[in-house]
């Protein structure tokens, strides 16, 4: 290891005032950097809330939007809320078992070489831009068959699997080996040890990983643009048709020239933001608790 700058001439005592001043300057800059990050978060949340509050009322979740509305009749985004619940729900059901199984395989069964290779694949999948996932699912399911909620769910599931797998792997690695050895030593087969000893120990961690993944994909717009965006204004629970979702609705309303549409976009953005902030902060809090519980063992 090189230790640049830590050689005699640079540490000369007569330069001490200058060195101290540089140090103070750098420390101040680091404080400012942290303040900027926190400030940006504050400004974004504040301005979303400020623009959203006047438009926030129950019509938002109880009324459908009206196409080409010429009156001031109250409009909402009920169809988008329902669509997001359906699409994200199905995506979670698709991604959760696959993600957990991949993690179990990599952590409990796979030889090191396969584990490294598939972990790399997971990271690559995690790095594929969401819009490319959208194009992929468009080619896989939408061409010739039309958009559907299922296609949207599949696209979101592609984004969720690496998140769920990585967080499950992390928590499986925290389960003490003594537990596995005790179980195997009692004659319990490997699969039962995995399913009834190791997995229950990690339920908390898997849950938080899943919640974080849900929070992440609930705000995704790009994959849904290709798979579930050409929609009417009616509420539908049927994932065989394209369903409106909150992020796509915000995206479309934000491009509209009508200020009333902007107001609804802000209101929907606030609801989405609050949902995501609460779930991800809650999940993180749970994760820390779980981790310290597992580590204390």
């Amino acid at each position, binding site marked *: 290891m090189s230790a640049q700058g830590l050689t005699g001439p640079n540490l000369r005592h007569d330069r001490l005032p200058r060195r101290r001043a540089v140090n103070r300057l*750098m420390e101040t800059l680091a404080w400012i950097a942290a303040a900027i990050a926190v400030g940006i978060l504050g400004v974004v949340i504040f301005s979303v809330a400020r623009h959203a509050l006047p438009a926030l009322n129950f019509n938002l979740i109880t009324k459908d939007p009206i196409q080409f509305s010429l009156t001031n009749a109250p409009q909402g985004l009920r169809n988008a809320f329902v669509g997001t619940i359906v699409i994200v729900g199905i995506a979670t059901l698709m991604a959760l078992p696959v993600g957990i199984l991949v993690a179990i395989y990599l952590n409990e069964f796979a030889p090191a070489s396969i584990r490294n290779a598939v972990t790399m694949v997971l*990271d690559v999948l995690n790095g594929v831009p969401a819009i490319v996932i959208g194009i992929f699912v468009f080619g896989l399911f939408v061409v010739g068959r039309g958009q559907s909620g299922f296609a949207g769910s599949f696209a979101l599931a592609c984004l969720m699997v690496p998140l769920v797998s990585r967080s499950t792997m992390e928590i499986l690695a925290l389960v003490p080996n003594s537990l596995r050895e005790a179980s195997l030593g009692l004659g319990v087969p490997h699969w039962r040890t995995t399913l009834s000893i190791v997995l229950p120990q990690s339920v908390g961690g898997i849950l938080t990983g899943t919640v974080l993944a849900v929070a992440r994909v609930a705000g995704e717009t790009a994959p849904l643009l290709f798979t579930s965006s050409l929609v009417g204004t009616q509420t539908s629970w049927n994932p065989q048709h394209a369903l409106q979702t909150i992020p796509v609705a915000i995206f479309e309303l934000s491009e509209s020239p009508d200020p009333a549409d902007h107001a609804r976009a*802000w209101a929907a953005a606030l609801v989405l933001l609050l949902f995501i902030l609460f779930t991800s902060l809650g999940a993180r809090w749970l994760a820390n608790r779980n981790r310290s519980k597992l580590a204390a063992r």
Partner: protein
Amino acid sequence: MTSADLTADATRRPFTGRRLRFGDAVLQVVAGAAALAVTVLVGLIVWKVFEQAWPAIQKYGLAFITRVAWNPVLGRELYGAGSFLFGTVVTSLGALLLAAPLAMGIALFLTELAPKALRGPVTALVETLAAIPSVVLGLWGILVLGPVLRSTVEPWLHSAFGFIPLFGEPSSAGASMFTAIIVLTIMILPIVSSISRELFLGVPHDLKEGALALGTTRWEMVRGVIFPYSSGGIAAALILGLGRALGEAIAVTQVIGGGVSIQWNLFAGGDSLASKIAASYQGATSNLETASLIYLGAILLVFSLIVNVVAQWIVRRSARKHGITRGGHA
């Protein structure tokens, strides 16, 4: 219990043992199939994207990549990725340039400077920044940030640094590559800073304390110990941030303004690969235009694959190097 009983018990073992191994085999095969499926999925993504882009790849070949054109008028159709490639490079490199020093500052603040009471909350707040959906950030970017930049920051930069072509005449729309750079900076800041924070936490205490004991100031210790020790990881964090910036479609579409030309003016509108796809996909008029848009997606996919593989290669290499260094110190 006689020895005969024990032998009988031992001979019975293999039968139960085989049933047990059967269960192992089932779980291993099912879980292994899931792992295989994920691997196949990545291959399938590459194949499906290139398959859909094929009509455009066949027609235009590699010349598409550098050509500056997007003309969907039937009969005179001509498409090229040049200006979007330019927009992608300018916006993501710009965001990286702004985010890198900020992220280093945040990570150093969180690991070295912050009082204990601030450490946890500020870490959580910075990670919360990563949780803001891109569409919300884009909405804020176009309706709040854009107008502010347009009316104050851009004219000021133009009058102060106007001799540099990058800081040209602000566009009237309030949507510009500059707005996109700021929005992307906000998006990649939490990623880069949280990875850097973990790297800095991993620097051995004996090295840091050794430097301080030599009489260095805190900043000299950071420059002499923390940065060299985590340089590989920092590079990987920056590359991952770059990958995120390259691929962001929605927020960039909302704020970048659009346009098909290469302008060395940050305050003019433009488009990145991802934003062009998001902006034009629904309005695509012909199969060739759709295929060309997906060709843009294929370029983006290749970019992101390269970026990710390089970043991981760096991470693995520096992990190996540090494994040895740590062993030496133990």
